[in-house]
């Protein structure tokens, strides 16, 4: 017969005091926090809970900062072992901070790092009382990561079970969020009409649930799909529904993707120079939030457009800017094959157009 001895810590902060403490923590430079932990109430569960909620809200506006903050919190809780909160709260906080770090890494295309964080998250959540909801959220992130690695069959196989988990827990927004993966998978397989149906369904259902974030994300994706199909009116209408809400929510990732969608529309309708300018604007938006993979992907798209305009030298410059980033990101095999061809052609100063298209096609479908 075994059992652990319970902890009896001092009375924690109220939830309001926890929020204020969390704001103070975020204003304190990372390096100064361990020494000021007691004054910052960094070991109080209300502070950590509020920090997790704040970081979750910032994932779409500042993924790089969230990654650093979440890693700090995880390390702080883990070593030396700190007995925070009651019962399973330490394990929950380890799981949650690792999930935040992993999700941020996924946005930043730091895939290997994301996977390690997701493993850490599972190790934490596994020991909590109400694990199914949190493990399902982790499952969503893992499937989203698989989608980015183009493992479409696996995503489509596992998605129904995940949706069912969310439904059985009555987590309706999360269940709806899973349908984004379905829509993105259809974009990947070039089934654009069906993808439009999915995103329209999401927008309608999100509206009835009162989730403007999900509705706006659905319209952001609709902008892109209609853009890919050269459907100007529909793409612009979708972007007009997405942009005001995304701006208000400071969802900078989705805003940059809307910009990408508009650039795609311009390209598809033959407006090459305006398309290049629009892609540049999207790059600036990705740069502001540290999404280097997307910047590199757009370098390749712009290179293709430049080639189309006979500007070979400029195109080579774009490719040269993208290659180190793409290489560093350790892309999937087909991406790496195209990358090798391109690297070789870049050395010979003659661009292998097919390799370029394969590589930026790989990126573009992923990032939509």
């Amino acid at each position, binding site marked *: 017969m075994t059992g652990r001895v319970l902890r009896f810590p001092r009375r924690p902060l109220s*939830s309001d005091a926890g929020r204020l403490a969390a704001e103070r923590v975020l204003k304190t430079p990372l390096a100064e926090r361990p020494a000021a932990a007691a004054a910052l109430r960094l070991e109080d569960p209300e502070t950590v809970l509020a920090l997790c909620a704040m970081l979750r809200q910032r994932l779409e506006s500042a993924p790089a900062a969230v990654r650093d903050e979440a890693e700090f919190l995880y390390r702080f809780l883990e070593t030396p072992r700190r007995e925070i909160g009651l019962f*399973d709260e330490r394990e929950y906080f380890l799981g949650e901070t690792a999930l935040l770090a992993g999700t941020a890494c996924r946005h930043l295309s730091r895939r290997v790092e994301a996977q390690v964080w997701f493993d850490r998250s599972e190790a934490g959540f596994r020991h909590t009382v109400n694990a199914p909801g949190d493990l399902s959220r982790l499952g969503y992130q893992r499937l989203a990561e698989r989608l980015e690695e183009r493992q479409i069959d696996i995503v489509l196989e596992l998605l129904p079970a995940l949706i069912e988990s969310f439904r059985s827990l009555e987590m309706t927004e999360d269940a709806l969020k899973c349908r984004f993966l379905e829509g993105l998978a259809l974009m990947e397989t070039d089934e654009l009409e069906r993808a439009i149906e999915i995103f329209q369904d999401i927008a309608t259902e999100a509206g009835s649930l009162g989730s403007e974030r999900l509705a706006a994300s659905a319209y952001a994706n609709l902008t892109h799909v209609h853009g890919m199909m050269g459907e100007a009116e529909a793409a612009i209408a979708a972007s007009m529904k997405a942009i005001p809400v995304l701006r208000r929510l400071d969802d900078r990732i989705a805003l940059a993707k809307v910009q990408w969608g508009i650039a795609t529309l311009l390209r598809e309708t033959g407006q090459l120079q305006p398309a290049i300018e629009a892609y540049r604007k999207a790059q600036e938006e990705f740069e502001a939030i540290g999404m280097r993979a997307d910047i590199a992907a757009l370098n390749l798209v712009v290179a293709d457009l430049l080639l189309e305009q006979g500007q070979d030298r400029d195109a080579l410059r774009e490719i040269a800017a993208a290659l180190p980033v793409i290489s560093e990101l350790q892309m999937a095999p087909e991406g790496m094959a195209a990358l090798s061809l391109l690297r070789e052609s870049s050395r010979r100063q003659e661009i292998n157009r097919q390799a370029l298209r394969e590589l930026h096609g790989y990126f573009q479908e992923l990032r939509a």
Partner: protein
Amino acid sequence: MRRPDEVESLFSRTLSVIHSALVSYYRLTEDEARGAEEDLLLWFQRLARRGGSAQMPVKLLRLSLLSAACQYGRSFQLWKLGGADPVDSDLGEILAREPDDVANDLDRTLEGERS
């Protein structure tokens, strides 16, 4: 009803079952049980604001509350026993069971009372 109020309300409605489990099943004293219940309330209020739990209806968190109460009761009694055998067979049997199983039984009882 606001979510924090829903959380308080569910806790209040479950409290008599929790108290009974702590005192009758796990043989905590009245004082020990009251201390446990204070901790459980704080914990439950935070549980309802966690990433996953916050998306779930409060009613679905009742089983987690009962499970935490049973884990608390069992751990506390084992700590009090300090490795010694339980004084009677009923306590021995409850300590030998998984707290989640006991919590499931309590949850079913509550569900039965409602229907």
